[in-house]
């Protein structure tokens, strides 16, 4: 079993849809959880950063962490074509080895 599991997609939605992206993990020691957005052939860009369980909202983006279920989510409201990218989840437990999901490729169609 991989330490971090993420459905690779691809996921295609119409413009304006609500997008739900998810990751599961096996290491209960993870405390810091992140979502990155990566455009083709570019470096990942940090979208959301949360510590422990709970929700965090930033504009159209909401990150949720459920440590009891070892499950994290990213919701995108009112999705736009510019949101088309690969989304990576990442997590760590206060060390230098951050674990990444394989990424979900999202396409938002106009």
């Amino acid at each position, binding site marked *: 079993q991989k330490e971090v599991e993420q459905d690779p997609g691809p996921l295609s939605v119409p413009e304006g849809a609500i997008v739900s992206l998810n990751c599961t993990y096996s290491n209960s020691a993870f405390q810091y959880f992140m979502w990155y957005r990566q455009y083709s052939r570019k470096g*990942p860009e940090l979208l959301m950063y949360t510590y422990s369980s709970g929700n965090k909202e930033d504009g159209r983006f909401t990150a949720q962490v459920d440590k009891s279920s070892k499950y994290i989510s990213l919701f995108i409201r009112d999705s736009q074509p510019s949101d088309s990218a690969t989304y990576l989840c990442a997590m760590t437990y206060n060390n*230098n080895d951050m674990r990444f*999901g*394989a990424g979900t490729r999202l396409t938002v169609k106009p």
Partner: protein
Amino acid sequence: SQTIHQWPATLVQPVGSPLSLECTVEGTSNPNLYWYRQAAGRGLQLLFYSVGIGQISSEVPQNLSASRPQDRQFILSSKKLLLSDSGFYLCAWGPGAGEKLFFGSGTQLSVL
């Protein structure tokens, strides 16, 4: 504000040739520095990280090495490239262990 520079963006090298990728960070002091490799559909693999000048930790035994000659400079090297070294290489910096990472724009390396 902090910025990270990584170059070149694209590199095509023959098998057996040397490699040098450079990364520099501006606007911060004593950052943690990282080299990752990204393979399609497989996520990011940590190759090396450094918590200070001359301090390098290797996560994966391989044909590559890293050096940190200055506080905000991180270099990835190889003496002889293999076909399997092809991939997308990313440099990143972070304020400390367990905290968020900020990535450079990446280098697409093709070894032919």
